[in-house]
């Protein structure tokens, strides 16, 4: 190594000669990307198992009426997408070192996550009232309840953890405890939660709309 460049404060030679940071990103960001890959596979396995059951079952329930279920879940999708937009603007503000704006965008993003979760819970309770639970359905297809509540529940857990993560990040960043790179890493997590919903929504809700209703 004749000369050593640094990228993001990490010494790098050529990526192929064992450079310190072949992807020129800090280790937190790389760690988050690896987590996202593993979590993608978790959700992919669950959604594929769901889709298998959906295609193979003769009397798969189609409980999602245009109102409230589809209207509500479409609204939830738009809310989650909007929170991704505020997140991106928060990261951009953080890279401009605009602390006050970053905190505001991060809190707006967390608020989007809270609205999403509340809407989703009202949707769940609506299904409970109609007799859909994690272990039974009116049609006698318990697999629907197990897979539906399992997948949407796991996603909702991710949203809830994301909201907590963002609130911690906004408070900490406002106090100067975190750097703009940390905000960007939290952004990666949030966009991933959004991305998963982009598959959950069509594969679970839209595949089982109630055409009669």
């Amino acid at each position: 190594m004749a000369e050593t460049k640094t990228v993001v404060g990490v010494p790098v030679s050529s990526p192929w000669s064992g450079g310190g940071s072949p992807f020129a990103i800090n280790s937190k960001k790389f760690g988050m990307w690896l987590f996202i890959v593993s979590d993608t596979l978790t959700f992919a396995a669950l959604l594929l198992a769901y889709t298998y059951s959906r295609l193979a079952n003769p009397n798969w329930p189609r409980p999602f009426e245009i109102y409230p279920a589809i209207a509500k879940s479409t609204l939830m999708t738009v809310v989650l997408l909007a929170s991704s937009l505020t997140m991106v603007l928060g990261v951009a503000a953080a890279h401009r070192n605009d602390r006050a704006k970053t905190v505001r965008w991060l809190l707006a993003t967390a608020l989007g996550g809270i609205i999403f979760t509340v809407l989703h819970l009202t949707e769940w309770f609506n299904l409970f009232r109609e007799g859909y639970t994690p272990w039974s359905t009116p049609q006698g297809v318990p697999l629907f309840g197990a897979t539906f509540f399992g997948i949407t529940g796991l996603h909702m857990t991710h949203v809830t953890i994301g909201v907590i993560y963002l609130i911690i990040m906004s408070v900490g960043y406002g106090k100067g405890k975190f750097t703009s790179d940390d905000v960007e890493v939290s952004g990666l997590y949030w966009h991933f939660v959004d991305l998963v919903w982009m598959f959950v929504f069509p594969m679970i809700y839209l595949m089982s709309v109630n055409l009669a209703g």
Partner: protein
Amino acid sequence: MSAHESSSEVHAVGSTRLFVLVWVWLAVITFIEVFLAYERLRPDLMLSLLVVLSIVKAALIVSYFMHLKYEKIGLALLIIPSTIFCICMIIIFFMPDGARLMQMRLGH
């Protein structure tokens, strides 16, 4: 590669206008999906169309919101092919059988 030498340059990429544009596209594709759900298509055709549209959305989110388009190409080459490979392995095991059972149930 010069665009990746300093982090401030990397992060300068992507304006508010671009992000809003990406968001509008994501919302438009979502509404296309919702309308599609009410067409009476065969479940396998419907599923394929919805998944293709969702992959377009995922690509938009990953490249612009998650910034992967502006990282070193090596990161994308590490992450995306390996993930697609693993998902294809699951599909190979599950989906032919799922499609067979669907055909039986539809009585073809």
